[in-house]
């Protein structure tokens, strides 16, 4: 299947660490998601869609949080000599809980990091998002739009409360067509997002067109299914993967994702068994990942704030 193709090599970006001013950081109305907009100065190199940043609110550092957290860049808007970066997140663990509580102020941002989505495909761009995996794909859709190109943007989620599209993140797109889906039917097609390729004739047709490419981001199960579907149709899948990551710069060797031995061959100087997701990804060809051995990221034990833990009766009734 892979033929003579080679696995992607490590990308070392000219990343910088900057103090970013938080312009927005609040729940996204009607959802369980949060939206933050960070203003980074002109010393921050222009990112490409699919790249990520390591984010640490100063409040989190003051509270003793050791490591920054990786997030895909969801929007990148020129702002004077710098950029406004959009970050979409869910409050799933301790780090994101501190982000939600941090409100405004200054956050430390390290980036841009990693390998983004390839954009040289001439055929239809098919964007497949699951939940907050919509983030890097909104940036990609905006990037394509700015170059006169459209896309089919399929966005699935469990429920409407987990669903966000470009409009919800403030992106105005005229060339992208958004196809919503949700497992409970509260938003768009009821069912899984990949079913849209069967149910919607235009999408089935786009998938069959020469030069079509799928760009995907979302939970492990969606990426595995999308990669399998792409392989079945002979359509390349570029998946933005996720792993437990400490540094984002390639030195900690934490964020390894199992490599499919049947997939494109790594070079001799690369780890033969694992993909370094921060350097060789986060966007990698779907056929590079051994999805059966890949392990979904676990958030750290959901943090129960002491001031909100008032539901259990700890005192005897008198």
């Amino acid at each position: 299947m892979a033929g003579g193709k080679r696995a992607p090599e490590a990308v070392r970006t000219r990343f910088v660490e900057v103090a970013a001013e938080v312009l927005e950081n609040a729940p996204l109305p009607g959802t369980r998601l949060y939206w933050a907009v960070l203003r980074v100065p002109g010393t921050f190199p222009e990112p490409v869609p699919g790249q990520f940043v390591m984010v640490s609110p100063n409040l989190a550092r003051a509270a003793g949080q050791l490591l920054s957290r990786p997030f895909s860049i969801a929007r990148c808007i020129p702002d004077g000599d710098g950029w406004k970066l959009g970050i979409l997140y869910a409050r799933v663990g301790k780090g994101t809980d501190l982000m939600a509580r941090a409100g405004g102020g200054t956050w430390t941002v390290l980036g841009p990091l990693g390998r983004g989505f390839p954009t040289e495909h001439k055929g239809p761009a098919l964007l497949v998002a699951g939940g907050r995996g919509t983030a890097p794909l909104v940036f990609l859709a905006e990037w394509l739009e700015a170059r006169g190109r459209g896309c089919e943007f399929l966005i699935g989620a469990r429920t409407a409360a987990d669903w966000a599209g470009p409009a919800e993140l403030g992106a105005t797109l005229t060339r992208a067509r958004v196809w919503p889906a949700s497992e409970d039917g509260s938003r768009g097609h009821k069912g899984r997002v990949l079913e849209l390729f069967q149910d919607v004739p235009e999408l089935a047709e786009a998938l069959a067109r020469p030069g079509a490419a799928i760009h995907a981001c979302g939970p492990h199960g969606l990426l595995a299914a999308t990669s399998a579907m792409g392989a079945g149709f002979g359509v390349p899948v570029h998946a933005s993967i996720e792993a437990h990551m400490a540094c984002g710069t390639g030195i900690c060797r934490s964020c390894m994702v199992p490599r499919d031995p049947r997939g494109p061959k790594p070079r001799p100087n690369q780890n033969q068994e694992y993909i370094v997701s921060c350097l060789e990804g986060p966007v990698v060809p779907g056929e590079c990942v051994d999805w059966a051995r890949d392990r979904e990221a676990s958030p750290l034990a959901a943090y129960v704030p002491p001031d909100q833990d008032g539901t259990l009766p700890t005192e005897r009734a008198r």
Partner: protein
Amino acid sequence: MSLDLTVRIGTLTLRGPVLAASGTYGYGDEFGDRYALETLGGIVTKTVTLKPRAGNPPHRMVETPSGMLNSIGLENVGLKAFVKDKLPKLALVPTAIIASLGGETPGELVRLVRALEAAPCAGYEINYSCPNVAKGGARFWADARRLESTTRKLRGLTARPLIAKLTPNATDPAALARACEAGGADAVSLVNTFVGTAIDLERREFMLGRATGGLSGPAIKPLALAQVHEVSGAVRIPVVGMGGIMSATDALEFIVAGAACVQVGTASFARPDAPVRVALGIAEWCQAHGVTRVADLVRTVRVAGESKGGDAWT
């Protein structure tokens, strides 16, 4: 006022008291020339083994309160690629490059030192303390007689500085340090990580792919400080202190506790220029406190109220 930051380890004079710790700064060339690496005393490379190692299955890392657990498993490019691809690039790095060596047996360490004697590196740190491998890890090497005889073999092969990196997961770390000293080590470095684990309750799974890992970061600093103080009182060779150093203040605490110099590790994951920040901060603190030689600070900590240098352990 001039400030002498140099530290002597065997035949080597380090230009400053801060090194980047093994496994936390790649091979030394990862950050190119973007940071002022000349402010560092050295960079200890990722541990190299005879053969390349792919490392442990995911997850390899989980953050814990004020720290992190890692289970990397000595992933490295192997001796051949280290000599051919990595070391030549490191010649351009403006600080001492100390190769960290890992072996499953004394014989493997002997082969590594022999192979590297002709290669351009300033010294060796022998990783006697990886907690994340099945063979040749911390448990295997936490044996004073084995440490002494192995260190003696290596001593016979090289005039370069030999630093023995020790595990904190031992009943008597001072005894292990004395064994290395008796075998001819020029310094001991400690602490490597403490064995720990984390659990995903909902899945009833260990978070780490290999169940346990090594704990590092600010969480272990008090444990590490106590071990550095104890061991520095037990040996005459320099102690290289580390364990949760995030700032110059942390580093200086290790120095007054007994460390001749320090290594910065986990902090580099949060900020890649952490070792440089620590090095600059130490110089600044010394200037502000009228200290002219960092060496004068080593093991100067006292028990409150006592005028003489105290030893909390005796």
